């Protein structure tokens, strides 16, 4: 427990340093934040344009898709904000810069995740939160305790699952330097997938993101339950509540992968 607390504290210390370091270059924070906000709003604009011509997509109405969009955006956004830069690991390894991080009395993962930390990356979760609030308002659901629970579960477990994917797949870079693309397509690509209803995708893909990379647990399965929709895969209802277990397992696996990676780390010859 003390170890975990220290991991968080040291992350916070390093992140604060990166924020200070960024102010050394006088680029306007407001301008850059606005640009980020604009860029991550674009895919919602695409959705809006689609609904200009139709009022259903895969049988889902716009507010229903807004629920998917919001929860997916928050999940990837929060994970990216906290530890997204772990994907730069391969570069750190190649240049030997990881060595200096390993000299600090702090978990290497905290140091790597805090890298180039910036508040600007809050743009995405902020925009996703706005869409989510609008969707919840427009849906006009009959709230019951299980729906509240499912929503809360998505907001907590979603970021954990994405965080585990960031860390676990980045650990592959310890063994194979070019693995960054693999991780980026699973995380950022996966998040885009989750913005759309599962009904529009092929069965094989759905199986892959349920049992392979456990993305379906981030928001698809819980959302099916909230909206009372049938599951295109016909999975048992318990799966819709399984996110906490899946998140814990994913985080555990990511931790093991990271550890194995560190032990295999070979530094550089000079």
């Amino acid at each position, binding site marked *: 427990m003390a170890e975990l607390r220290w991991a968080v504290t040291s992350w916070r210390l*390093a992140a604060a*340093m990166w924020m200070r*370091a960024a102010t050394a270059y006088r680029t306007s924070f407001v301008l850059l934040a606005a640009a980020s906000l604009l860029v991550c709003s674009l895919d919602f604009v695409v959705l809006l344009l689609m609904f200009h011509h139709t009022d259903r997509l895969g049988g889902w109405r716009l507010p229903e898709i807004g629920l998917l969009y919001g929860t997916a955006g928050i999940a990837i956004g929060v994970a990216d904000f906290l530890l997204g830069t772990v994907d730069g690991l391969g570069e750190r390894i190649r240049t030997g810069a990881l*060595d*200096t991080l*390993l*000299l*600090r009395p702090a978990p290497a993962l905290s140091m790597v995740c805090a890298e180039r930390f910036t508040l600007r990356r809050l743009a995405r979760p902020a925009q996703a939160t706005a869409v989510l609030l609008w969707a919840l308002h427009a849906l006009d659901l009959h709230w019951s305790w299980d729906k509240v629970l499912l929503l809360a579960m998505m907001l907590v477990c979603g970021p954990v699952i994405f965080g585990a994917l960031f860390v676990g797949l980045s650990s592959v870079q310890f063994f194979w330097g070019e693995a960054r693309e693999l991780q980026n397509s699973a995380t950022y690509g996966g998040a885009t997938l989750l913005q759309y209803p599962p009904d529009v995708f092929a069965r094989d893909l759905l199986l892959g993101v349920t049992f392979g990379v456990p993305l379906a647990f981030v928001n698809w399965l819980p959302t099916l339950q909230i909206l009372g929709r049938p599951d295109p895969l016909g999975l048992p209802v318990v799966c819709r509540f399984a996110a906490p277990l899946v998140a814990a397992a994913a985080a555990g696996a990511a931790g093991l992968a990271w550890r194995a990676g560190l032990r295999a*780390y070979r*530094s550089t010859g000079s």
Partner: protein
Amino acid sequence: MELIELDRVSRTFTVRSKAGRLRRRRHEVRAVDGLSFTVRAGECVGYIGPNGAGKSTTIKMLTGILVPSAGRLRVAGVDPARERVALARRIGVVFGQRTTLWWDLPLRDSYELARRLYRIEPARYAANLERCVELLQLGDLLDTPVRQLSLGQRMRGDLGAALLHDPQVLYLDEPTIGLDVLSKARVREFLREVNAAGTTVLLTTHDLTDIEQLCGRVMVIDHGRLVFDGDLAGLHAAGRSERTLVVDLARPGPPIEAPGARVVKVAGARQWLAFPAEQSAAPIVAAVADRYPLQDLSVREPVIEDVIARMYAGAVGG
């Protein structure tokens, strides 16, 4: 007390090299090969050897960055790779080729972060900072962004950063690389003080003056194996090293004949006489002064590069 213990430690790297158009051949590099030694608390040990001998690899294992492939390793009683974070609080490391400082921030900010990461108590931090500022002359540099520091200034900054938390051991991997004579002298002076204050120092370098001026003990490593461990005098003996007596005569003459010495060079009135390093120069000087018109003389210490080169040559020949 043994602070560092290595027992038959090895580290191999698998490297892939191109063999043919598509095939890749894998082969193993033994960077460190069955290395055993111990270092007691308070020692200052020079760790030298040719390029690629395995010095940096050893240091990386001693910090916990690299996991050994075989053997047992203990620093301050712990296994470095297993307890890297705990050990990091008790060691200081300076890689001459790589800075641990924050590039875009003033030196002071890097030190502040160290204070919090190493959980240094305020009073101790203030005292240590003051000591580093004084000995390393960092006063004007504290508020300068690290990227604006010269190499020598940055190195002093790095040394300070490695010592703020009162480490038991200080590892230095080529701390004087690229520095001018004056900066080197400053760094050495500082390291001497640090060692005198009780910090154990393990120093890797290609500048053998560092060793001469700082280290009571020298370890020579080659191809990942320890080939010499002893004091400087022992290294001279092992390398059959020689000192040189430079004699200026009143006028040019035939090669000097003196017992125990031989002339290696003659240039006008100046002659160079070599004699075994462990032998006293006095009888030779007396013999020369007795028989030749002497104007001036000086004794040159052996250059350790040559000593080591001869030692390698000896090892290969034998």
